[in-house]
């Protein structure tokens, strides 16, 4: 009876572990590990054994991956991931979730202006009789599109310029960095307003302007990370083995110095979305785009008798930014356990 149960348990465990599971005593397990080969490997510094090294490497990789995921599993990070998923769903399936079409929310003028929340309009209606709930859902589309695209432009541009500046040095570095100095010494919002006014108030121009002006920050970050790599021996050996300049820069230096950028990107997406909302709040957003910042600006004059119309869009901004920032904090903790924010 007991034996049968034990055999059953053993079968279950083998199913999980994929091979015949032998419990064995502690001594038996020790015997398996403590082969002379393994002892030699861990005790003498110069010893090499392909098989054990490979296993060791696999084990470490597995361990680090597992601890990365474990560290990522902090409750706040999970909240961040859920929020980002939720807002992405709003952005992609806006027309299904809100039951409104773009035409209803941005083009047609309804007679029902500034109505209080009711069964028909759960969050009330705002300027031009448009449903606040619908515009809250649809606003995710603009924010995410603008935020994600412009951060991509910034990161790609900044990484390329930063690597070139760090590797080449000399007048090229000076030129790039002084240009960054000039651009970054004008407060971001002011310069963006000017650039957007030059290019015209359209979605593509706005995200281009934000993306291009965001390059400076990543250039500084990338340069400071890459400049210490320039003197490394692996760079020298790559050069000696005949790798071209571009190959050294983008296949050797770049992967070794990109970590701080990856850490900061998710957090910066939040900042980018905040900045874009501020831009449209000041009236420099694209026309006819459903955007939270513009909604706040349009409805703020009716705060006394229709507060819902100005308050809800702002909550949309907060939720989105909070999601990306929590995710960014979690990523930073998981990737770089030394810094704790």
């Amino acid at each position, binding site marked *: 009876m007991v034996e049968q149960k034990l055999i059953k348990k053993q079968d279950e465990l083998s199913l999980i572990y994929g091979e015949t599971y032998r419990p064995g005593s502690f001594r038996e397990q020790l015997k398996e590990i403590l082969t002379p080969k393994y002892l030699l490997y861990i005790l003498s510094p110069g010893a090499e054994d392909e098989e054990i090294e490979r296993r060791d490497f696999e084990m470490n990789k597995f361990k680090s991956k597992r601890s990365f995921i474990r560290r990522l599993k902090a409750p706040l990070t999970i909240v961040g991931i859920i929020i980002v998923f939720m807002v992405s769903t709003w952005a992609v399936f806006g027309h299904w979730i809100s039951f409104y079409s773009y035409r209803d929310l941005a083009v047609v003028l309804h007679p029902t202006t500034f109505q209080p929340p009711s069964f028909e309009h759960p969050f009330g209606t705002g300027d031009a009789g448009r449903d606040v709930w619908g515009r809250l859902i649809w606003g995710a589309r603009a924010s995410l599109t603008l935020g994600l695209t412009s951060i991509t432009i910034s990161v790609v541009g900044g990484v390329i310029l930063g690597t070139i500046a760090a590797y080449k040095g000399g007048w090229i570095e000076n030129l790039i960095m002084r240009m960054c100095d000039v651009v970054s*010494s004008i407060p971001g919002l*002011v310069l963006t307003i000017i650039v957007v006014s030059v290019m015209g108030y359209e979605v593509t121009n706005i995200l281009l302007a934000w993306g291009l002006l965001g390059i400076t920050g990543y250039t500084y970050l990338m340069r400071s990370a890459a400049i210490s790599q320039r003197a490394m021996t692996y760079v020298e050996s790559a050069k000696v083995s005949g790798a071209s300049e571009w190959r050294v820069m983008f296949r050797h230096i770049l992967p070794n110095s990109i970590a701080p950028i990856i850490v900061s990107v998710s957090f910066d997406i939040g900042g980018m979305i905040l900045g874009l*909302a501020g831009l449209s709040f*000041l009236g420099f957003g694209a026309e006819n785009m459903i955007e939270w910042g513009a909604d706040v600006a349009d409805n*703020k004059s009716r*705060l006394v008798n229709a507060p819902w119309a100005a308050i809800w869009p702002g909550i949309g901004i907060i939720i989105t930014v*909070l999601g990306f920032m929590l995710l960014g904090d979690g990523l930073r903790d998981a990737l770089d356990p030394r810094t704790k924010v």
Partner: protein
Amino acid sequence: MSLLKYTIRRLLMTIPIIFGVIFLTFMLSRLMPGNPFLQPGIFVKGNPEYIRALLEQYGLNDPLIVQFLKYLGNMLRGEWGVSLAIAPQVDVWELIMVKFPVTLELGIYTTVISSLIGIRTGVYSAVHRNKPGDALIRTVAIFGVAIPVFWLGILLQYLLSIKLSLFPTIGIATPGYPDPPVTITSFRLIDCLLTGQFGLFIDTAWHYILPVFCLSFIQIAGITRFARSSMLEVLELDYIRSARAKGCKERDVINKHALKNALIPTITIIGFRFGSVLSGAIMTETTFNLKGFGMLFVDAINNRDYFVINALTFMITFVFIIAVVLVDVLYAVIDPRIRY
């Protein structure tokens, strides 16, 4: 003495950057579609020849580089040009001196308040790590970083001004109150104090509380997060352990050994955040309808008022650069290891 030398050298280093900024904003402002007398999409009375004559009169038909050199020469001589569209023929300097101090005042009060509070909360949070106080501060701080400043302003307006009528909703002074009679520093609050108008001082301060609170809340959140992380880094170092081992009081360990070293990166961040304080001030002004830099700037952009745009960008950049230089000097004062 050497500190003075360092300051002067640091200031000289900013001159090329300032020239770059002037060049960039000049070119960008001239590249905007339309001109001060003819904005795109707005119907303007007046025939094209009249507009051409106006452009000719202000030298706006010359090649851009000639215009730039002329502008630069005039600027160095202290002639910043006249407003062309929003307040025709008014000297730009006069326009700015009325509006710009409001923004600067907001920015300076915010920076001072938020540095004082933010560093303290950051240190508290780091010292009491993973305790309820720390959790509370961190939660508030992450919300503070995520809240758009203009929305916070609107929320406070609704709750405190409209619902509870504790604070005035908009504006810089109660209607009917006079401006301070003499402008000494152009900062309204300080002028009121200097001229002894305490009633006006209290009224203005009353109007400033909400905007400064909004801006400070966001700055405090950012500074707290940064101070906390740099404090945590410092607290793990060896010399903290040796300070404790030699029997220092915990308060001295925190305030003398740890804080001084954690302060150095934090102060740098405060300097760099001054730019975002100014950006935030622009939005707060729009929310609270304070007639400052933000409204003037938006007006100037919409009307293509070239000289106003150039002068405003120059002023705000200048202030920002000065703040960064100040922080650098402060950095050298705090950290004796820095050689200047």
